[in-house]
């Protein structure tokens, strides 16, 4: 596991309130589940049709072949969970019943547009439930590395196919936490040892700096 990714996941995990229902996308977002602060109960929604995703089974004989998560991994369900069909599952997503979703990103632009499903020139595998999550969850948090091989991922305007229009609320990277506001991107927090100038150099988008800028603090 990449240390940057763990750092991002830990910071994202601070975003939830006790009792929140949350959907985690694949990649860095999946890691977030490992770092929920003590005392905060977060319930995870699985788009294939249940809430209260539990840990993976301890042993082969604990596996239930009809209980997988959306990434086709055997999981368990915690007490209080419920199963439902795909229409209800996406009704939950689209209807704003999730406090948040955490998704990866190829690009996010300063208007909060998100691109994460298709990269021209690479294989197209489909959007799965990503487009629904992007427009449906109450808060859309993007957990991604700040740049791709030095190339900024937080841009003025996305130039790869969009997943959702003006849907992003918060961007968490290994360098920074940025909020998408009506007045544009606002740098809210920076990683320890990182300067605002370094964030600016790694970011194509315009952003303002919160007068109350904080240092990201994770355990």
């Amino acid at each position: 596991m990449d240390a940057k990714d763990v750092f991002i996941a830990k910071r994202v995990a601070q975003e939830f309130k006790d009792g929140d229902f949350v959907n985690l996308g694949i990649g860095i977002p999946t890691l977030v589940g490992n770092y929920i602060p003590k005392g905060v109960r977060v319930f995870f929604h699985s788009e294939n049709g249940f809430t209260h995703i539990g840990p993976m089974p301890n042993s082969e004989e604990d596996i239930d072949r009809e209980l997988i998560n959306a990434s086709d991994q055997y999981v368990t369900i915690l007490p209080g969970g419920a199963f439902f069909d795909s229409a209800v599952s996406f009704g939950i997503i689209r209807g704003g019943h999730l406090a948040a979703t955490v998704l990866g990103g190829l690009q996010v632009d300063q208007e909060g547009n998100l691109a994460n499903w298709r990269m021209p020139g690479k294989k197209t595998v489909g959007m799965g439930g990503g487009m629904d999550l992007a427009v449906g969850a109450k808060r859309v948090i993007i957990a991604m590395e700040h740049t791709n091989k030095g190339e900024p991922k937080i841009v003025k305007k996305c130039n790869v196919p969009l997943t959702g229009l003006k849907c992003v609320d918060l961007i968490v990277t290994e360098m920074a936490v940025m909020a998408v506001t009506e007045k544009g991107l606002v740098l809210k927090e920076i990683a320890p040892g990182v300067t605002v100038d370094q964030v600016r150099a790694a970011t194509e988008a315009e952003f303002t700096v919160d007068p109350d800028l904080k240092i990201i603090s994770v355990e």
Partner: protein
Amino acid sequence: MAKVISIEEAVDLIKDGMTIMVAGFWGVGTPEKLIDALVAKGTKNLTSISISTALTTKGVGKLVANRQLKKVIVSYIGRNPATSEQYESGDLEVEFVPQGTLAERIRAGGFGLGGILTPTGVGTEIEQGKQRITVDGRDYLLEKPLRADVALIKAYKADKAGNLVYRKAARNTNPLMAAAADITIVQADEILEIGEIDPDEVMTPGIFVDYLVQG
């Protein structure tokens, strides 16, 4: 996560002028204790969404009889003379919605759809003010979502995670309305501990439920 509260606390969440959804079909599947408490409290100028206005002694009909409603969105007002009387005198606004359309509009409200296209009502009076859209040669009406401030739900069994199970014909609009309000309050015959309802048996997942009241 559902919070267990008293019936008084529950009806205190309903303020003058709010829109409420009341589940049930002729009172079957209606949380009558919540309705009774709302009658006792006398909250006014409510808009109510329900299948019918039931009877003057049952379901939403009690709120009509007590003149607490300014508008009802329903498919049927027969058998409740109070509704007809207030409707004719102009004291009560009535929006008639075909029952299947009502169900879909509530579901759309809960599930984040901007509306649904239904063939129901095309070419009838209820088309007035609505957009007609042709899809693959057939005409449909665009019907918009319905939401409420508060949904009043009646369950047979609930657990403290808010998972609900209904019984027989009492299910009707309950699962739809539970998802379509800002605050969902459930009157349950039985409130169980978390884990006491099989996750496969749940008819309304707890994610939709805010408050539980002992029925």
